[in-house]
């Protein structure tokens, strides 16, 4: 190993660092996101809804975009988290929202862990049906025990205490929005860390070639269990956020529509780069409002048409219609990298043979 040319090592190190660094476009995205708190004070309710959709779609991106697990039942964890948060608050078990949020996420993670073993084997079709089935089962369980869940009427009488004992949820949704946005940001940073780690890289490898993944020593099944569990926690936290910001939980949390819309949101924004869910949620919400204002009855027609076009145009990879934006981001990143002192002076080839 002594023959390795130092500049090459330095070049590789800088490439790997660049890969993990926040690009200017990302920083701008988050500045803009937090600026909305002050820019659109009258839209906090809608923005909170978008944040929750974005977080939910992010949870689907973790399994679909990185590990290649397709799911039509992510609402199972969303609904579960929503009810756990509701019950914790209603019965005064854990009244501080942040702690209750974490507890709801952990509860959803446990459920995710237990059901993850069902999606390990089998084709995409099996996975679609199994995840769909799990969500249906949970929904019916919630329906079957109205004394706990409130049944079809939903969980009534939930009161949410101030966040950290300080910030009361107000009528205009200011606290709700700031709280949701901070939760989203924190979870996003963690997700970003995860997908750029060796663990995240192994997920992409498994998605691409499970046979070879095992042949380099990756315990494929355990990695899938791990990411499925993490994604379940994310979905559960999204559900809990909905309960906490609306003081209500209902069977809608488990609905098939929610799973399907979550997938739709993600695909509109693009899979496999974490921002897809967030951008998709934004587009979905505004497209919804805009189309509904033109054709109140038939807005879903247009959503359906857009979906078909996106999937057909982005044949190679779902969501690739956003590629130009990403290319731009890469260019900017490369330009920044090039302004730093170049690590690799000599030509790489023929540097030193072993």
């Amino acid at each position, binding site marked *: 190993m002594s023959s390795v040319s130092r500049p090459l090592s330095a070049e590789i190190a800088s490439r790997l660092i660049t*890969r993990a660094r926040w690009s200017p476009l990302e920083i701008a995205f988050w500045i803009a996101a937090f600026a909305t708190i002050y820019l659109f004070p009258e839209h906090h309710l809608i923005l909170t809804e978008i944040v929750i959709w974005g977080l939910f779609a992010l949870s689907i991106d973790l399994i679909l975009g990185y590990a290649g697990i397709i799911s039509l039942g992510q609402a199972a964890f969303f609904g579960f988290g929503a009810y756990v948060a509701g019950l914790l608050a209603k019965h005064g078990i854990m009244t501080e929202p942040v702690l209750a949020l974490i507890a709801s996420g952990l509860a959803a993670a446990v459920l995710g862990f237990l059901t993850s073993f069902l999606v390990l084997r089998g084709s995409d079709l099996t996975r679609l049906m199994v995840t769909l089935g799990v969500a249906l089962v949970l929904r019916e369980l919630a329906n079957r025990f109205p004394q706990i869940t409130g049944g079809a009427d939903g969980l009534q009488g939930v009161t949410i205490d101030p966040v950290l004992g300080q910030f009361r949820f107000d009528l205009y949704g200011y606290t709700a929005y700031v709280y949701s946005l901070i939760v989203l940001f924190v979870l996003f940073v963690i997700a970003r860390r995860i997908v750029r780690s*060796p663990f995240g890289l192994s997920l992409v490898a498994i998605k691409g070639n499970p046979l070879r993944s095992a*042949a*380099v020593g990756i315990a494929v099944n355990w990695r899938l269990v791990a990411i499925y569990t993490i994604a379940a926690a994310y979905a559960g936290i999204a559900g809990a956020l909905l309960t906490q910001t609306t003081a209500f939980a209902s069977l809608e949390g488990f609905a098939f529509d929610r799973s399907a819309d979550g997938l739709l949101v993600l695909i509109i924004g693009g899979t496999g780069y974490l921002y897809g869910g967030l951008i998709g949620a934004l587009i979905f919400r505004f497209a919804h409002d805009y189309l509904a204002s033109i054709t109140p009855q038939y807005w879903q027609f247009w959503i359906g048409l857009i979906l078909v076009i996106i999937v057909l145009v982005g044949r190679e990879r779902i969501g690739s219609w956003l590629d130009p934006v990403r290319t731009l981001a890469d260019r900017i990143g490369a330009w920044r990298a090039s302004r730093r002192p170049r690590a690799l002076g000599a030509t790489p080839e023929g540097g030193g043979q072993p």
Partner: protein
Amino acid sequence: MTLVLETRALEKRFGGIVAANQVSLRLEKGARHALIGPNGAGKTTVINLLTGVLRPSSGEILLDGKEITNVEPHDRVRLGMARTFQINQLFADLTPIETLGLAISERLGTGTHWWRTVGSRAGVVDEIAELLERFRLVDVMQERTAILPYGKQRLLEIALAFACRPRVLLLDEPAAGVPDAERQEILATIASLPTDVTVLLIEHDMDIVFSFADRISVLVNGEMLVEGTVDEVSHDPRVRAVYLGEAFDG
């Protein structure tokens, strides 16, 4: 010498077809062993049994004297056995840097570390650099694997097995379909493997076999026909009959 890899009466049946019948292999430490045989003789089945992709119908596999017949494929890699594939099995969306970084992280046991960035551990980057140089992948190290030329993909295929730092390396037709220029490169690299690494080579090309191996096993219809030194095997009338003498005239 110590036996590193051994199979005892290994058998694999697919329904009524016997793909591997009573296959017994013994590889000593540092062996350069070739497994040859006509198309459909069951060579790849044997590799798949050794690496755990397939489970044998009966028989045992021993690594360093310990039975590994029912050990998961990924655990066999951790025990020191790595392979290359006859048909490239790569990660299309990863670059060579990422591919090798991944394999090295897994070998070091840091593959589950979700809080680190890839290559943040000391030594990983140097090792990536060393492998990229040795396998002439430096100029394409940042391209997506899917768009690399075939020869480069082939080199990455083998570099990936090297990144596992195996004690036993199974090479399934490493030079298959490689252009001449890169072919020499691959063969030179294989020849320069450390002498304590045990190698099992599956190959069609007799020139490669004769230049590389010190022992040869001949597999025909899933059964071990002959096992011996290069000289013994090349003069064996049964082997000549199977190969119609063509490759053995030299």
